[in-house]
């Protein structure tokens, strides 16, 4: 295990800069998720850590060692790929033992380590099978097993659950988290799924356009997003946003006035409220119900405030019809205000 340090790292493809001077410190044993939309540079950054992409500028350190010019095999890392990248002609046991064989470990050690990894991942009955004879979830576990047997300093995951169906994704999510809690290996996990990021990570790094937008603990990012991008990217359904200006009566939008907490910043240009921070109240602002989505535990109300669409998540079971006018009141302690520069005020 080791800490991982990324210092002013840049990546150019020709003249095009895709990673803009990123700095990150990942503590020993920490589970960090790189999250962001497609093309934000999260996979490129992960591949730079792995040594699969060159570093144009800056420094990457694993432990105390600068690894900029160190070959992937000498970085003491293990990587799990989106498409598993299992060797199709090798059995599960052979896939898992390949790295150890290359390292020149003796047969007894290899067998012991493969057995241990297989036992952790419940893969013992499948050791003699070929990857094509396994389900998606089992293949993903083999990919993780291949990483575990090497006892690396850092685990790297590149969207490992993207190829799985929704149910299996949830199951594998907890398996990976459980695995991390048991092994306590420093982990960098790339995903575009913010739910995955929120549920698994000790620390989330939100990226956009090759820049880090915000780094923090999952609930920090949720409760105190640094800017509009993080506010809308983290959380599902995403935060409701209204453009307008601060006035003496509240936050004036083109569709009406929204209540503001006392002492709000006068320069606010965008008003944000998360769907679960809206409640039904007689003194709320009027919203026309468009669609009702009951999920059992909660009900999502998609409505219209003037011309603006919004979403409210209600704990109560409600029975509104499309076209009904309801009144929603924001929890003033949870209102987010953003300036012209889109930064949180």
């Amino acid at each position, binding site marked *: 295990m080791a800490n991982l340090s990324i210092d002013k790292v840049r990546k150019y493809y020709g003249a095009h800069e895709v990673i803009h001077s990123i700095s990150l410190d990942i503590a020993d044993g920490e589970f960090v998720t790189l999250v962001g939309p497609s093309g934000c540079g999260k996979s490129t950054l992960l591949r730079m850590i*792995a040594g699969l992409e060159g570093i144009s500028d800056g420094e990457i350190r694993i432990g105390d060692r600068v690894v900029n010019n160190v070959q*992937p095999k000498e970085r003491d890392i293990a*990587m799990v*790929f989106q*498409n598993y*990248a299992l*060797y199709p*002609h090798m059995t599960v046991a052979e896939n898992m033992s*390949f790295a150890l064989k290359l390292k020149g470990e003796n047969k007894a050690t290899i067998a012991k380590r493969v057995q241990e990894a297989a036992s952790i991942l419940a893969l013992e009955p499948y050791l003699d099978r070929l990857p094509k004879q396994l389900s998606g979830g089992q293949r993903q576990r083999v990919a993780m097993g291949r990483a575990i047997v090497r006892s690396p300093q850092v685990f790297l995951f590149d969207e490992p659950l993207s190829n799985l169906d929704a149910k299996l994704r949830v199951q594998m999510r907890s398996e990976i988290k459980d695995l991390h809690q048991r092994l306590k290996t420093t982990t960098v996990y790339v995903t575009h799924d913010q739910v995955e990021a929120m549920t698994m990570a000790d620390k989330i790094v939100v990226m956009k356009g090759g820049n880090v937008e915000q780094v923090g603990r999952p609930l920090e990012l949720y409760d105190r997003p640094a800017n509009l991008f993080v506010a809308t990217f983290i959380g599902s359904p995403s935060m409701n946003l209204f453009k307008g200006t601060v006035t003496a009566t509240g936050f004036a939008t083109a569709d009406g006035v929204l209540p503001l907490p006392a002492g709000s910043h006068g320069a606010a240009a965008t008003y944000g409220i998360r769907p679960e921070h809206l409640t039904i109240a007689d003194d709320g602002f009027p919203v026309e119900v468009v669609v009702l989505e009951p999920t059992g535990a909660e009900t999502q109300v998609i409505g219209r405030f003037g011309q603006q669409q919004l979403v409210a998540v209600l704990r109560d079971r409600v029975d509104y019809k499309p076209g009904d006018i309801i009144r929603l009141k924001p929890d003033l302690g949870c209102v987010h205000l953003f300036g012209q520069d889109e930064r949180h005020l």
Partner: protein
Amino acid sequence: MSDLASPTTAAFHPKESVRAYRIVQSICVAIVALVVISPLFMLLIASLKDDRFQILADMGSFRAFWVSDPTLNNFREVGHFSGELAFGRYLANSLFILTTTVISGLVVNAMAGFVLAWGSLPGRAVILSVIIALYVIPQESIIMPLLIIVSRAGLSDTFIAQILPWVASPLYTFLFYQFFAQLPKELYEAASIDGASPFRIWRSIYMPLSLPAIATVSILLGIETWNQYLWPILITQTDYARPISVAIATFFGQDSIYWDRAMAASVLMMIPILMLYLAFQRWFISSFVGSAVKG
């Protein structure tokens, strides 16, 4: 009822026409197979006949496909390792040239294809274009300069002269390149993280996954090597490295053609390449079907 009956009747006709189509198709395939196989069968039958004049007399009639008292005498006569009819030696020469060329060809072309597909090679696109361009140059057009090079290198009448010039081939390099390039890059990356060198990745990951390409190259290069005639006739002067393809031709330069021996020698020449094809045909066909489907 009539509503229910009509679809059944309608469904009957397509089945009948499909059956008729299948019969016609089978007959056509059988005719084509007969046309292809009959000369080979005639060759085999003739090689079992003892009388060369009878072979000549039987040609052109159905008796060419029948032997009443088969004998292996012709094979015994040509199966020597020295002397005038040292076809045993020529066959051994050919087998040595074939095996060495195919094995070296697989190694060299697969390595080149691998580097072109996954190596960090400067000017890779240019090299690839040159390789594709080289493919259109016929072998015969480079034979004279090649003959001069080989002669000056003192390699005339050697096995090396018959193997070395044909080991590296733009066609087979490109074929391997194309096959490797369609395998996921993550396999390379996973193996390199696992600690494998590029050579180990090629040997332990990519080659075992390339059986269709290996089979295709083995068969094509094998046939090409086995059927070499012009080059060995220019480069060999003695029996030392003379292949069977050149040796058979000597029958037809004589005043009187020994058809019986020529047929036996031809059968001997045919067997190894037939075995090579049978050994690899499953992957060979699958690679052709695969390339047709994938474009």
